[in-house]
């Protein structure tokens, strides 16, 4: 089998849609967050930490980070698909990105729900 080109994985629409849905979620959060920052102007630890005490704010923030992880996965995968050609290297790169992003998601949960 010499260099046969295989396509037909029959996925793609789901990631494409998810990338857009997460983008909308992050856009809304970002705008609200910047407005909050400018309105509250947290000048010390109490005010800054206090912003993330209400449960709704923690939930919104964690949804932002999880959206970001999924969004980044689709985006970085697209980049890898363009520039990394050997299948083995691509598989390794995909794996590294997935683990890094799962780590990031877990870390953001830990930051927000630490006592």
């Amino acid at each position, binding site marked *: 089998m010499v260099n046969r*080109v295989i*396509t*037909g*994985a*029959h*996925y*793609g*629409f789901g*990631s*494409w*849609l998810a990338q857009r849905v997460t983008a909308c979620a992050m856009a809304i959060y970002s705008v609200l967050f910047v407005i909050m920052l400018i309105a509250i102007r947290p000048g010390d630890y109490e005010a800054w930490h206090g912003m993330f005490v209400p449960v709704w704010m923690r939930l919104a923030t964690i949804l932002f980070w999880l959206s970001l992880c999924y969004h980044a996965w689709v985006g970085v995968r*697209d980049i890898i*698909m*363009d*520039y990394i050609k050997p299948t083995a290297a691509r598989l390794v790169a995909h794996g590294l990105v997935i683990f890094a992003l799962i780590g990031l998601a877990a870390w953001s949960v830990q930051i927000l729900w630490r006592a």
Partner: protein
Amino acid sequence: MKIRIQRYDPDHDAKPYMKEYDVQLEPSDRMLLDALVRVKEMDDSFSFRRSCREGVCGSDAMNINGKNGLACVTKVADLKEPVELRPLPGLPVIRDLYVDMSQFFKQYHSIKPYLINNDPAPQLERLQSPEDRAELDGLYECILCACCSTSCPSFWWNPDKFVGPAGLLQAYRFIADTRDQATEARLDDLEDPYRLFRCHTIMNCVDVCPKSLNPTKAIGKIKDLMLKRVV
């Protein structure tokens, strides 16, 4: 008029090089193709494709001052000198401005560019209403010159897997055709991380199309149909 052309002769050159020509234009030479014919008179080793000389056959697509276009419909007066001519980007060069288009046509053929209809053929023809026929406007006019696909970075990086704007425009041309019965299979075929979803709406294709067609819009409409069938 000064024209710099990328030359490459596989029998003599290890790699392409740029050669400059100073062309005397006659008053009747209005299009870039006329100037190229003058160059050919000066130096008959120079090779390029041409056929209809009026923007219908799509043979003389090339990279003109960094932008893909057809030499026969590009006005000399609109060009900045020296005019730099290179072969279409992203395709292997056979000689001078000739490129190997087999990858491009392979992708075009992969979308099954013909009507698929299993009903017995009627006596005369399969009829459409004027509204249904209007759906094909902006799609059927494509002349397959490859200006769009070879200006598309997604096609450069994955010419073997990404169908490319020209092929996808034609894919939608048959999806949009009410006489075609294979919409579902066509959508299934394009539901693929490479074949369709390499398009990131960069829109270089729309920028260069000599027929002012819009492959990005056609690709968007394919995505619309995919959305419609899952929600």
